[in-house]
């Protein structure tokens, strides 16, 4: 008590500034102690949650497997299956448990096909998980919406097309990507009809994903891609060009010939590449007519095309470009010349004093 009185007197005699500093120190100590207690609570809470999550995961896994093997061919849902459904309907009311159950279903759905995969889809419907996914579509958070569409895709819910299609032109690309994956995964080539009205761009990554999904299907009969090649949306045209090449759309060659004069450079380059793949000789005169005005990418792309379709009529044009400022194009031009008229190439080699050309000639000698 005496010591305490001494400290109190000492504090009262201190200057105000020091008193303030001591006050702040005290406050800081209280804050740090609170913070440490909170961290301790948070750590034990997270650990408990992790333990519970593992326990529930194992429990739901067993329930799912029991559900899949409790099926009876004579009736649609056996008594044992109904008991599991009833239990899960109750569980999925809790957001935490619902998340775990969906992850169990997803984990197996990705790995198996056939009747069991259909049974998993049915369980998604019967436990009412579909309603939670649909509710997510109206969320204000874009990641919630994307996750809702992803669930509907994974469990193959085709009858909510109208709800999903409302989000086709959503401001967030991630949501649009999920909508597009929903269409193509569930409606195959027919699902590509969204391209008719698409205002926003399709990301390059999503284009790759869509093409990969399409290649999985047994029915490879593609719908008419002409409207997409004529689209005002550049990304749709670029995607349609990929489809034209993969699915050998020879019937679209006339539109492809128009696209070499498209306002967007990337489309012009890609359409030359597709025409090159189809070896369309008619493209030569169109591109040659304004060759010098075209970008270097288009010029190189065209010369690569000539590697497959050049004939003696192209010799003068190729010869003119052996002096091109671009090294890659010049190399292709000399390669073409070697192929079409090796004597002419030999006479150029003998007369040449250009050091840069020497490298090309040396390369052509051994290749």
């Amino acid at each position: 008590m005496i010591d305490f009185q001494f400290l109190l007197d000492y504090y009262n005699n201190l200057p105000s500034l020091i008193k303030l500093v001591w006050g702040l120190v005290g406050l800081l100590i209280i804050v740090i102690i609170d913070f440490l207690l909170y961290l301790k609570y948070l750590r034990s809470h997270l650990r408990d949650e992790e333990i519970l999550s593992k326990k529930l995961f194992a429990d739901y896994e067993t329930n799912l497997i029991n559900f899949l093997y409790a099926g009876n061919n004579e009736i649609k849902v056996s008594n044992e299956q109904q008991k599991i459904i009833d239990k899960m309907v109750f569980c999925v009311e809790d957001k935490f448990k619902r998340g775990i159950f969906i992850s169990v279903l997803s984990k197996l759905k990705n790995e198996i096909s056939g009747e069991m995969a259909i049974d998993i889809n049915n369980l998604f419907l019967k436990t009412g998980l579909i309603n939670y996914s649909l509710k997510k579509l109206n969320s204000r958070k874009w990641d919630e919406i994307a996750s809702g569409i992803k669930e509907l895709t994974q469990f193959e819910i085709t009858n909510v097309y109208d709800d999903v299609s409302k989000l086709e032109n959503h401001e967030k690309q991630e949501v649009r990507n999920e909508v597009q994956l929903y269409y193509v995964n569930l409606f195959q080539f027919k699902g590509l009809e969204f391209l008719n009205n698409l205002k926003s761009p399709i990301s390059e990554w999503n284009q790759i994903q869509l093409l990969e999904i399409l290649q999985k299907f047994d029915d490879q009969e593609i719908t008419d891609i002409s409207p997409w090649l004529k689209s005002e949306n550049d990304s749709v045209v670029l995607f349609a060009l990929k489809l034209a090449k993969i699915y050998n759309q020879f019937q679209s060659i006339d539109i492809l010939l128009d696209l070499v004069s498209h306002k967007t450079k990337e489309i012009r380059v890609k359409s030359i590449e597709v025409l090159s793949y189809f070896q369309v000789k008619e493209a030569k005169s169109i591109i040659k007519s304004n060759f010098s005005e075209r970008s270097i990418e288009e010029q190189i792309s065209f010369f690569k095309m000539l590697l497959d379709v050049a004939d003696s009529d192209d010799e003068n044009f190729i010869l003119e470009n052996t002096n091109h400022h671009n090294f890659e194009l010049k190399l292709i031009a000399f390669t073409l010349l070697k192929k079409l008229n090796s004597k002419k190439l030999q006479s150029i080699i003998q007369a040449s004093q250009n050091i840069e050309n020497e490298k090309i000639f040396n390369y052509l000698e051994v290749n």
Partner: protein
Amino acid sequence: MNNLKKIVLAEDNSTLSLLLKFRLEKEGYQLFIAEDGKKAIELIEENNPDLILSDIMMPFISGLEVISHVRNKLKVTTPIIVFSAAGQEEMVLKAFNLGANDFMGKPFSPNELVIRIKRLIP
């Protein structure tokens, strides 16, 4: 005396392992489950199984290394079926070169797997 045919299943997806365990035990096989390649090698060495089912992509030791260990180190001809995901075609070819007998692309039907197992160990 235990006459059940033994199968080692190397698969890191616990739900799929559980599903196959239920199914294959029902068909009369004895299952040993490994959640990674390292555990799979231990189980193979301990139990000398009649068949090995292995995923290609697994933690620690891949399915390819498991096949290589079985064929080159243990020098046994136990039939091996590998599971592969889409886009792992090259891995599947490597698995066949190393000595795998069959493969199934994921997602696969458990019924089809049972048919393939019965063909390899009648």
